[in-house]
Structures are given as C-alpha cells and as structure tokens.
C-alpha cells in the first residue's frame, strides 16, 4: 500500500520554497516528485526585453544570493567571446581570487546548514562564526558582503589595493590553522558517520546519465570540474584538479559522507589557489574600456552567439547568449544553474530510505532553488501535511536514537 506525504512550500527545513511529493510504502520512500514553480521570477524575460546588457549583469547577480559571482561571470564570458573584448591580465587574476573567496564562503555556509539538519546547532554557530572572516575580506575589498557588483565587460570594477593584501594573507593563515580542527569535527564524529555513511548513495552510472555536476558528482567518482577541463580566466596557470573523496578516505562510495569530504577538500584547495594568485598578481589596468556608454555601443553593433561556463560552488553554471545587430537587449539569454541538473539525483538517492533521512540527503546536494527556480509525500492514499518542523524534528529524533 502506498502513502503520499506532501511537504508544502513554506517550511523551515529548507530555507527556500519548494514542493516535494514522496510516495511511501510503510516507512520506505519509493518515489520522489519535485514541483518547483515557487521561485520563478522571469529573469530571462526581463533580460531579453527590458534591460540593457549592463543592467543585466546586476540582475544576474540577484538570481542567487549565495553564489552571486558565478552568474555574472558566465554572462560576461559569453558576451566577451561574441564581441571580442580584451581583458587585462590583472583583471583575470582578480576574477580568480574573487571566485575562490566565494567558494570558501559558500562551502562553510553549507557545512553549517548540514550540521543544523542533523541536530548539531553548536557546529552551525561555529562554522558561521569562522565564515565571518571571509565575509570581512569580501567587505573590505568589494564594499558589500553579498551582491558585490564586481564584474564588468572587459575587466573588473574594483581593484585589490596594497593595504588589502596583508589582511588577505592574515585570513589565509587563519584558515590554514583551522583546517585540521574543522576536518576532525566533521569527519571523525561518530554520530555524523552513523547518520551519513551509506545514506543517500548515488552510483557512478546514475551520476553520469542524469548529468549531475559539482561536488555531488565528484563524490561519486566522476572527475568533472570546469576549472580543470575548459580554459577560462587565469585558471590554466594553476593546474586545478578535480577533488574526489579517495584523497582522504581512500575509497569512493558516493554517499552523503563523501560529499562532506569533497567540500572540505575544496575549501583547502581554494585557500591554496588564493595564496598563489596573490603571490603572482601582475600589475596593470583592471578594465580595458572605462566608459560604459562605449561598451554598450560596441555590444549593440555585434552579432553572434556564445556560451559561457564557470565552476560555481555548487557545480557547473552555463549561460547561452545570442546578440543581434541593432537590438539593445540580448536577443536570447538562457540561464542554467547547477541545482537544475542535480535535483533529478534526489530520486535514486532517496529510494528505500526513511523520512527522517530526507533533510540531510536533500541538503547534501546543496540545493539553491532560487537558482533553479524549486516535497509532497503521499502516504497510502491519505494526504497528511508534514511541515518542515515535523521533518526537522524527525531528523533530530533519529540522531538521539542512534546515540543511545
């Protein structure tokens, strides 16, 4: 006999509205359905019909507030390829540093949210306190903590000045000292291992067929990383390698624990990339064309199409832009955020698991539904609303049961 339980859009478990429908048989999940229309704001339509290209950079930033460097980065890559705009060397290095700073802040944010789903509020407060160090650096360099407005066609808008560099080096030392402590807190805790080992397994064939991206797919053994595969910005100088969990644990299973391992390894990799980028920062201009009106008139005369791809903290982000001569806005703009491809992996991950496992497995792909644009569990023909509070409570109760 099958049950269906709906998890409605407003719930405290996931911070964004999404409807999920799970079919249960007894206590085991047999089917997952996602209804994601709560976050659709029509961003591509606004970019194609109302905005000029520079306004679309600021609109693209607000597609997602957590990964807000990746969307303008892809857009700028695509338009620079069509219009053939040159970018100075210092700007490429600053773009790499900004992108890695964002990766550190996003992974530490996720670590706190994952700990909260398991019932470890102390770890939530600890990781978010550590994260404030990188937010301070973002504020000093960019002027704002979130939505920084740093990208522009042809370079960046703000420079890393002489007085900022000692503060960035102090942040690097701080994180290097703390890395081992955070790794021990997450990876050697018995309860976290019990809740996450062998839970939410995604096999390598499923990860390839469903087109998953980012740490979700690297934890299953697929070596996909746009920084390693495709040359853009200044990444070819750094020889970036895709991080898979066998570097620390020695084997690749593809469960939730492996996804925690991959994200912690990536924080360490980002700190090392920022350090070598700072050592080799070339001097010079930061933007090739300073007047915005000239850039806009160059874009208006161009015609062509291109794609821009970037490795966001959650996976591969891709934008497709088509420009037509004489048209002020973009003629066509398509955005595909990383969670779009990863959401389909909830189905093979959650099969034959219990309801109490839903929060941690769902949070382990790091869903950013405002990027995607969005759980109902149906229980034996009777519809029973399970709010997010119920889900969260069930998850914490399971932790307490396992601890006894």
């Amino acid at each position, binding site marked *: 006999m099958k049950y269906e339980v709906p998890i409605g*859009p407003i719930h405290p478990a996931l*911070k964004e509205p999404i409807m999920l429908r799970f079919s249960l048989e007894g206590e085991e999940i047999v089917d997952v359905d996602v209804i994601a229309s709560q*976050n659709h704001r029509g961003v591509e339509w*606004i970019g194609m019909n109302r905005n000029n290209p520079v306004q679309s950079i*600021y609109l693209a930033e607000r597609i*997602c507030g957590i990964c807000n460097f990746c969307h303008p980065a892809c857009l700028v890559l695509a338009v620079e390829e069509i219009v053939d705009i040159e970018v100075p060397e210092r700007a490429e290095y600053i773009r790499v540093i900004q992108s890695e700073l964002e990766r550190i802040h996003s992974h530490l944010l996720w670590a706190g949210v994952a700990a909260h789903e398991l019932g470890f509020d102390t770890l939530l407060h600890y990781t978010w306190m550590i994260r404030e160090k990188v937010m301070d650096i973002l504020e000093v360099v960019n002027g704002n903590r*979130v*939505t920084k407005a740093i990208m522009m066609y042809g370079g960046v808008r703000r420079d890393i000045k002489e007085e900022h560099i000692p503060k960035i080096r102090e942040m690097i030392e701080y994180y290097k000292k703390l890395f081992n402590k955070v790794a021990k807190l997450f990876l050697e805790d018995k309860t976290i291992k019990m809740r996450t080992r062998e839970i939410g397994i995604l096999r390598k064939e499923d990860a390839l067929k469903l087109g998953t991206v980012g740490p979700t797919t690297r934890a299953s053994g697929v070596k996909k990383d746009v920084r390693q595969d495709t040359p853009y910005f200044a990444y070819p100088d750094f020889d970036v390698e895709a991080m898979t969990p066998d570097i620390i644990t020695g084997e690749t299973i593809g469960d939730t624990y492996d996804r925690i391992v991959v994200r912690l390894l990536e924080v360490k990799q980002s700190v090392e990339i920022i350090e070598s980028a700072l050592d080799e920062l070339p001097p010079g201009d930061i933007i090739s064309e300073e007047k915005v009106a000239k850039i806009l008139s160059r874009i208006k005369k161009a015609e062509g199409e291109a794609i821009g791809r970037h490795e966001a903290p959650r996976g591969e982000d891709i934008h497709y832009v088509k420009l037509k001569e004489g048209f002020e806005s973009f003629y066509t703009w398509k955005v595909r955020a990383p969670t779009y491809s990863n959401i389909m992996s909830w189905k093979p991950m959650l099969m034959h698991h219990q309801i109490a496992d839903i929060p941690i497995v769902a949070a382990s792909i790091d869903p950013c539904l405002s990027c995607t644009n969005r759980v109902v569990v149906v229980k034996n023909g009777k519809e029973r609303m399970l709010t*997010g*509070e119920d889900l969260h409570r069930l998850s914490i109760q399971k932790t307490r049961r396992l601890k006894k």
Partner: protein
Amino acid sequence: MKITNSFKRALWVFHVNSGSCNGCDIEIIAALTPRYDAERFGIKLIGSPRHADVIAFTGPITSDMADKVKRVYEQTPDPKVILVVGSCGISGGVFHESYHLDGPINKILPDAICVYVPGCPPRPEAIIQGVVKAWEFLEGVSK
C-alpha cells in the same frame, strides 16, 4: 527602550521566503550567529506560525506563493507585526515588471502593519534594528 513587564517573553520570529534570491535569508541567519548575536536577547527562529510574534518576510511575491502568504498571515495570532526584509517586498526590486509576480506586499496584505528594512540585501545590523522597532510597536500595543 524600556522592556516593560507586560511583554513577558522575547520575540519569536517565523521566516517566510516567497521566492527570494536567498541573499536576505542568509543575512537573517547571520544576525543570529555569534558575530552579531541577536539570540542573546531571546529572539529566535521557530518552526510554526502559530507561536510567532513577528513574521520575517523576504522576496517578491511570485504568483504561486500569494495565497500561501495570506494563509500564513491568517494563522498567526494577534498581536503581530510583519518585518519586510529587503527591497523586493517593498517595491519588487529588480524584478518589478515580470509576468510571474503578484506585486509587493501592500497589494497582497493591504491592512497589515509592516516594518520595512530596505537594502539589497540589508546588513545584519539593519535587520536587528528592524526587529527592535517591531518590538517597540508590540510593547505599545500590549500596554
């Protein structure tokens, strides 16, 4: 601001996301973590609107979420205040002319009492100031 005896416990906040970009949501949670630490006043996020005093509201209201927002507002008992965080709830923000939006908050809940915190996103200190203003209002009501 005097904390009178009539309001015997601290504010409980219920957070509603009606399609926002998450920038304001992470600044609300950052206001509760040890750096800004609003939790020392007893302000905490809870899981059900039936125990809430303040509804912290983010996002431009998409067409899908309009009736759900109204239902949450009706489920919260009086006295209550809506704290609108971010420019999206005030005027639509950068998304104002989209085909999938149902207008800023005063079109959906015209007779609600709101404290507006503008910014895209506002800083955690600004959000705490907004909560304090809501607290002062609730103090005045319960006298």
